[in-house]
């Protein structure tokens, strides 16, 4: 079966520093993939190439076996690749509905927006995801961390995402909210959405991801199935950059 997304031999340098060196990963539909590594391991750079923040120096991106070019976040979104950034990248001075539709407003005559249609669709999306927000007309600056996360998640998947990238999805959340996100991830994966979770902390995503990719100093250390390894072994991969024997997936 062809993978939903394939990154092949991706290289990216910033002023002579190799941020990503010849890394290849793949992601199947419905799979939850964990991308692990220290700060500066190159994991964020790698996914930013996929989400269109900047282009790779070389390498290929394939969606369902077809080579694609991603030059901007718009290109990525058009391919169904959505990203929830660690900072959430919400506009705090706008209300929830405005954030949900930012850059993809429902508009009619000469670009004038249809506020009612957007509000209604936002309401429906949040209900479908069982996400609760106090009032859609509230400014994001007045929301709690968990509520902001809900807005960011709803924004990412309401436009029929096929691939969802989550950067440190639970780092800023309390235990209950973390549990909610875990449930949501399982549900989205059931719907066939491929999910990439990025973290520097193995504990955050060990229970969520079915497969783990470890990076160190811009290189791929290895890929393992979560079921085959212990946390300590993965930790060793992150720190020492070595794959435990006979664990290679």
């Amino acid at each position, binding site marked *: 079966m062809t993978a939903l997304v394939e990154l092949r031999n991706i290289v990216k340098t910033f002023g002579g520093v190799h941020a990503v060196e010849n890394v290849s990963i793949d992601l199947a539909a419905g799979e939850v993939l964990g991308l692990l590594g220290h700060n500066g391991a190159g994991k964020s750079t790698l996914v930013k190439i996929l989400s269109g*923040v900047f282009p790779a120096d070389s390498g290929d991106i394939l969606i369902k076996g077809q080579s694609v070019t991603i030059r*901007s*976040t*718009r290109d990525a*979104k058009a391919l169904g690749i959505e*990203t929830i*950034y660690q*900072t959430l*990248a*919400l*506009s*705090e*001075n*706008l209300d929830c509905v*405005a954030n949900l539709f*930012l*850059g*993809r*407003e429902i*508009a009619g005559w*000469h*670009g*004038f*927006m249809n*506020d*009612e*249609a957007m*509000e*209604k669709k936002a309401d429906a999306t949040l209900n479908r995801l069982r996400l609760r927000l106090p009032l859609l007309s509230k400014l994001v*600056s*007045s929301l709690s961390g968990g509520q902001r996360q809900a807005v960011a998640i709803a924004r990412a998947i309401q436009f029929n995402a096929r691939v969802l990238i989550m950067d440190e999805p639970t780092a800023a959340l309390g235990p209950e909210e973390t549990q909610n996100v875990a449930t949501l991830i399982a549900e989205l994966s059931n719907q066939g959405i491929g999910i990439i979770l990025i973290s520097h902390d193995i504990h955050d995503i060990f229970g969520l991801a079915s497969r783990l990719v470890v990076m160190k100093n811009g290189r791929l250390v290895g890929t393992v199935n979560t079921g085959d390894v212990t946390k300590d072994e993965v930790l060793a991969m992150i720190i020492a950059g070595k794959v435990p024997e006979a664990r290679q997936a």
Partner: protein
Amino acid sequence: MNFLAVKFRSVSDRIARAAGLDVRLLGMLFMMAVIWLTLDVLTGGLFITPRNIFNLSLQVSVVGIMTCGMVLVIVSRHIDLSVGSQIGFIGVFGALMQNAWLPIDGTSTWWITSLAMLGVGIFIGFAQGLLVAYAGIPSFVVTLGGLLFLRNAAFYINSGVTVAPLNETFQLLGGGLDGTIGVFWSWVVCGLAIAGVALIVWRSRRRRSVHSMAQKPLASDVLMVAIWAIVIAVFTATMNGYKQPKTDIGMGIPIPVLILIGVTIVMSAVARKHRFGRHVFAMGGSSESAELAGIDTRRLTLLVFMMMGLLCGLGSIVTTARLNAGASVTGTMTELTVIAAAVIGGTSLAGGIGTVYGGIVGALIMQSLESGMILMGVPTPLQRMVLALVLIIAVWVDTVYRKARRA
């Protein structure tokens, strides 16, 4: 004391929200009313007269037109210091066109010149926008350069000689004795405006009911339309109440004021209801977030400056037509008045926050204080000093208000 203020605020907030009204706008209109009544008392009843209100509206129109654009420029976290010089340069250019290149009495001269002046404004905005958005030079620097460049270019293209007179039809765009639409048409405009307000409110109610969403109370919408109708009718009556010299014929609404009202409506709609405005606010709040949401922030920045240039062109048409001359010094210091109006009207220099109508009320407050002080015979330096203090106090009050609301 502080507790009482908070208490009062929360109660008044709740009442206003229940009625679906904008608290900030109400506060600013209240300020305006206080200023007007005070000035009327201080000038011995000279301030609130058809004559003075007529002149006030005429004087505020140029600053108001440009403030509409400046609000969006500041909301996008930029600044345009060149708007005063743009007025001067475009004015001399337009006057030269009429006197040197086109027949001054030609029937098409007025609109060809006007279109060309708008075009020059858009081009200036395009050039400055390119430098800000694509070359990455801070807008403060680019438009400071624009301020110096254009002011001197205005001087240079006609060696500093003022170009006059101008085409007679063109002069109407500046207001003045014949530059009004007269009593009859003023009432027609008044009727259309009231009908327009009612139509907008009715359509909004219908859209909400189509989507089966919660409605504002009907009484509050009716009250809203009624208040607008009264304001519009009183304004029209005032404009018609100012008689032409030595006659009993009312002046009616001046053309520049009509232009200002039109620009305000369009720019408000663009800011609040159009995708472009939404993106400008998003970019001003966080450029990075806007970029990640897929907004082309460089193109957007370019468009913001082009829009500002267009409105400078319009402002220049009105000023130049009103002066009946293209002078290289026209519009000196206007950039500061325009920025002050936007800021007094609640636009945050940190970006992401502001309203077009706020900017217009800000411009009205500045102009009212200035005219009032002129009527009182306050010396010019003192007038400027008072306006400077008002600017600082207004921003201070706004800062306190915002902090209290966030708490």
